[in-house]
């Protein structure tokens, strides 16, 4: 397979000591095995995520993503921009579309960027890592790299919101996307096509500001995984992962449940299935240990 080179936008939560640092570690491992080279966008900044709008308004928020795209175009010229975080991808792609559609906004963004000595052109393609997997590598390509099939594991594919809407993955439905289930099958585990909460919102940033309202939704996401006999949940989104994993103690306290459901990334599954160590798969980053994956990794 020819080497794929991508201009990589890792995002704030992937940094060392941040909530999805485990995502970055496993995504890097996965990319090594798939011969994907990640060229980090030098000096990238926060995209504003889905909550920055309230403080930033429109142009300042769009300028954040325009700066990242401009830096990518300058330093990683000709490469597609790829993000692993749903909000990073969404914000970047949204900014690109808005600046493309609105000529005045394009000019204004460039006026702002010139203060930092940058110029936005908006020609680079903006993709999510999952698109690279589905469209460039393919499910068969993933399967061909599997050394330790995740046999006997039943995994609920929780796609969440922002990897799925409003852009989503080409050819997939917003209401019942199948690609995550296909990835689960490709690494040798059993998917759960009837997992009805696969695109349910976890509350996103409102998990901080409206914890009760969000945890009520998270409860439903976990409960449905149990009802479907899942051993664990897999997701492509860092905020989904954190929200669904780390509040289980709080939910147990509020609702008298006994949840202890591991929530991992697709890159965790693939790293283990590709024969890499528990450390390379960042299994040590689980708040709720994924014991069954640890067992397979140590074999």
């Amino acid at each position: 397979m020819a080497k794929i080179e991508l201009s990589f936008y890792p995002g704030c939560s992937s940094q060392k000591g941040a909530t999805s640092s485990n995502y970055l570690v496993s995504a890097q491992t996965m990319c090594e095995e798939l011969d994907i080279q990640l060229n980090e966008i030098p000096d990238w900044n926060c995209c504003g995520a889905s909550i920055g709008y309230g403080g930033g308004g429109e142009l300042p928020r769009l300028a954040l993503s325009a700066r990242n795209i401009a830096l990518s175009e300058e330093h990683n010229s000709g490469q597609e921009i790829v993000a692993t975080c749903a909000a990073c991808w969404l914000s970047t792609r949204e900014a690109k579309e808005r600046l493309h559609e609105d000529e005045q906004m394009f000019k204004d963004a460039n006026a702002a960027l010139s203060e930092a000595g940058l110029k936005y052109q908006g020609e680079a393609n903006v993709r999510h890592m999952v698109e690279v997997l589905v469209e460039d590598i393919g499910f068969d390509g993933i399967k061909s790299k599997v050394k330790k099939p995740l046999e006997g594991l039943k995994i609920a594919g929780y796609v969440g919101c922002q990897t799925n809407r409003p852009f989503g993955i080409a050819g997939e439905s917003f209401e019942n996307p199948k690609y995550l289930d296909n990835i689960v099958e490709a690494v040798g585990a059993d998917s759960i096509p009837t997992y009805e909460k696969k695109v349910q919102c976890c509350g996103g940033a409102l998990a901080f500001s409206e914890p009760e309202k969000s945890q009520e939704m998270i409860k439903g996401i976990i409960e449905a995984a149990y009802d479907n006999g899942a051993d664990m949940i897999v997701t492509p989104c860092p905020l989904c992962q954190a929200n669904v994993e780390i509040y289980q103690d709080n939910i147990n306290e509020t609702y008298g449940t006994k949840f202890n459901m591991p929530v991992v990334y697709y890159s965790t599954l693939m790293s283990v299935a590709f024969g890499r160590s528990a450390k390379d798969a960042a299994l040590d980053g689980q708040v709720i240990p994924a014991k069954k994956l640890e067992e397979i990794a140590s074999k």
Partner: protein
Amino acid sequence: MSDLNTAMIEKYRSSFLKEVEANVEEGEWVKMCMQCGVCSGSCPLGKHWDHPPQELFMMIRANKRDEVLGTDSMWMCTSCYNCIARCPRGLPITHIMHGLAVYSKRLGLVQKKQPTAEFSQIFWDNLMKKGRVNELKLGLSMYFKDGFGQGIKNAMANQKLGQNMMKAKRMNAMEFFGGHSVKDLSGFQKMVKKAQEIEEGNLKDAK
């Protein structure tokens, strides 16, 4: 009442719809709503909105300015994009809700202690300092937003969560001192300042 709010009332006395079209992000779409209610039915926090999106669109057209800009409904938006994905007419509803929330905030009409409005500002201020979000300080700012006493209570209540995250190396106490940053911080901040000036200028011109 803020000066800007007074000025806007004067200018758009006869039509709140025109005011929204001119000043709210993606506001020009509001008139396209056909009142089917799919957005309201699709919203994950729908039951918590005093006025779900479909209602807000009708209220805008019915000149219910105080009611629309005074409600905290828009701050219930989780940015799940269900409404956008399902709207038969392709209205960018999520962005209109964000736009309405921001506009109400700029006019000084947001309800006091609206938690998502507060969090949103805290998030923005946090990322402005270093160009990247400092999660530790973000969490602490949220805990302590209602004063020191309440902050300690919140921190104690979430102690186990914090310990779990530290153990998994997904939270780092050292982030309190400095933390991750963009290198060209001065260029970054100048860029944002310029963008803010342009946007505020546009709003003033509309006055």
